[in-house]
């Protein structure tokens, strides 16, 4: 039982990553009618916001230490961090330690800006084009984004740790009446889950309770009608693209300590996020979130040693098996609307 609780936690954790990306994809698809293959790349850009922030915060200058030598036998140049120069040893170290949470503040404007540029510069010309063209152009963009990151940061994953204070573990079992150490869970993963859950809630609240959100929802239901009302829906849609990019970006920042960012991340997430969106049902925001959590939890269960040893390879294919089963039972995924991308 304790193992099942742990796997549910893992599932919620994975699920919240799936859900956040799927949510952004659905926002873009639902409002703009654009299939965005570059969404995984936006997630990656977010993760690299964390990397960049951490690099900037730990920028340093060299001081030669005559007592030690480097690998070629020359005097060793030791890095001295500006943060520690300016704010003192402890405070400077603390600032560098909190790079990832600070990166959220950086990522929001950066990602919104990237979103705006993408939408105004590229995507808006593709509203009326076939989905296949949208796929090709955004796929090309995803490759370009990945290569730019590779050019500057290399191909290897870059470790971006969570702050010391949040990288401990919580002994969950004690709260639930198990003995100590029965269910130990990393704190950052809990932070990640609650953070994602609040972002999802915030997006829903925003769409539900603001006038802006209402117009956007109306636009998702029927774009032309809203256009006829004389509302400048395009401007709102541009903003929606920025919002979706920001959601993907924040998700990426928070995910960086869990899986070290690498330039291949965008492509790694691309297929999975589309499976989640489609299983949820095209154009349905609650569907995307639900599918994210369902697939996350099922995947976690399928990865349990007992299950894997019983059915070898099940962990490799479980996502696809579930996706196929759901699509065959429910023609439009969990909560899809009729007629959306069915032809």
């Amino acid at each position: 039982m304790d193992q099942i609780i742990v796997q549910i936690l893992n599932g919620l954790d994975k699920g919240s990553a799936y859900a956040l990306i799927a949510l952004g994809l659905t926002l873009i698809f639902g409002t703009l009618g654009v299939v965005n293959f570059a969404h995984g790349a936006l997630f990656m850009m977010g993760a690299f916001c964390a990397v960049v922030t951490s690099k900037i915060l730990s920028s340093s200058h060299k001081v030669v230490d005559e007592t030690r030598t480097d690998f070629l036998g020359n005097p060793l140049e030791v890095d001295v961090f500006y943060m520690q120069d300016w704010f003192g040893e402890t405070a400077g170290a603390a600032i560098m330690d909190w790079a990832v949470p600070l990166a959220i503040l950086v990522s929001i404007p950066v990602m919104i800006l990237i979103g705006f540029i993408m939408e105004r510069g590229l995507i808006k010309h593709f509203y009326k084009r076939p989905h296949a063209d949208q796929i090709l152009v955004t796929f090309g963009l995803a490759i370009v984004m990945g290569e730019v990151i590779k050019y500057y940061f290399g191909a290897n994953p870059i470790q971006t740790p969570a702050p010391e204070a949040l990288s401990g573990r919580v002994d969950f079992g004690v709260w639930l009446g198990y003995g100590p150490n029965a269910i130990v869970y990393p704190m950052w993963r809990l932070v990640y889950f609650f953070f994602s859950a609040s972002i999802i809630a915030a997006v829903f609240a925003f769409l539900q309770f603001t006038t802006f959100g209402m117009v956007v929802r109306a636009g998702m239901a029927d774009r032309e009608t809203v256009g006829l009302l004389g509302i400048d829906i395009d401007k709102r849609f541009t903003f929606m693209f920025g919002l979706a990019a920001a959601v993907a970006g924040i998700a990426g920042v928070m995910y960086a300590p869990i899986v070290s960012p690498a330039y291949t991340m965008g492509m790694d997430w691309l297929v999975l996020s589309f499976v989640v969106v489609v299983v949820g049902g095209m154009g349905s925001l609650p569907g995307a979130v639900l599918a994210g959590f369902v697939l996350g939890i099922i995947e976690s269960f399928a990865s349990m040693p007992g299950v894997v040893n019983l059915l070898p390879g099940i962990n490799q294919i479980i996502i696809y098996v579930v996706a196929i089963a759901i699509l065959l039972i429910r023609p439009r995924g969990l909560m899809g609307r009729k007629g959306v991308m069915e032809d």
Partner: protein
Amino acid sequence: MSNNNVTRRGVLKSGTVAGAGLAIPTIFTASSVAAYTNEPGAGSVKFGFNVPQTGPYAEEGLDELRAQELAVEHLNGMGDGGMLNTFSSKVLDGTGILGREVKYVTGDTQTKSDAARASARSMIEKDGAIMITGGSSSGVAVAVQALCQEAGVIFMAGLTHSNDTTGKDKKANGFRHFFNSYMTGAALAPVLAAQYGTDRKAYHLTADYNWGYTTEEAIRASTEAMGWETVNSVKTPLTQTDFSSYVAPVLNSGADVLVLNHYGGNMINSLTSAVQFGLREAQANGQNFEIVVPLYSRLMARGAGENVKGIFGSTNWHWSLQDEGSQAFVRSFGTKYGFPPSQAAHTTYVQTLLYADAVTRAGSFAPCAVAEALEDYEFDGLGNGKTLYRGDDHQCFKDVLVVKGKENPESEFDLLEVVEVTPVDQVMYDPAHPQMGGAEATLGECNNGA
């Protein structure tokens, strides 16, 4: 196979045909000029450097490429000569190979066997490469090795650690300097037993593909021989990035050691997950919980940062080695590029020199002559101490380094410290060892091609 892969580019480029006049078509027939595939002309000889330049192993590939370019420089007498000065064989003198200038072409394997073979074929068919070297995964190594066997060129494997490369998939035209899973197991197990005791229960997480299988098999066999017990083993998909659901059950499984048979990105992410779940500080069965990473890559370990501290593993070579050869290599590589070379760089550099040396000793570029010169060849001064290129399976036998993540690194390159140099006798095995495909696996006949 009379007229297979007839390619005469080398001849042409050296100018012998160029003067034949524009109007007269020349038709080459099978046995007219060359005795073997891509026989070089008098002026130069071309190597094919086939490494991953895109995809997850791109950094290792690019580091291999740097080392290969360095090797070419040294062979052609530029730079400081690097390991040529420390190599036990002294036939290479910096004037190219057999009086020919060394040139090279590069290609991208993308860490996919199809792309790697396409790239290698283009080097052989279009550029007239006489030898192919490089690569950073066993799947690619096995695929390209088979191609080179077929085409009649020599393949000097790059970073490939699976037993299969010189085990069940060995080929007469293929040679591996890098060590393998079996050697890792044989070298690592005694150190682990000494450090952690013989009463240990291991839990394996294994990447679900050939390299993972052979590594798990080797580690299990060696550790179980030391008295360890294997409580469980779970296969993880190659494409996995978040290992939480694999790592979470480990602590309550009764195990007290976690073995991560993962490489590259898999290793970084599974290790990160394991550390996040507190395995490094945990207690189990009254002992400290331990994590083992059989195959370390320093380049990749950087991505795991602090998490590697104190964790044992093995590596083919490390820049901090103090022998003359290693020092010479680190010096010339570091001077040229500004950072120390990786084990991938080292192995391809050495392979390139070994090939050049074998050609010189054989006095011919013919693959079979080169292969004969390499077989059962003993050498020293290339960074791993006394080394034997065994003729039975074309595998190098040399000391194996057992390393540990350094507790107090002095620089971003200073991540591993060498704990023990396992002597070569301890990692020796019979060519027909069951882990190597048994008696059934043979090298076959060497192929000169055309």
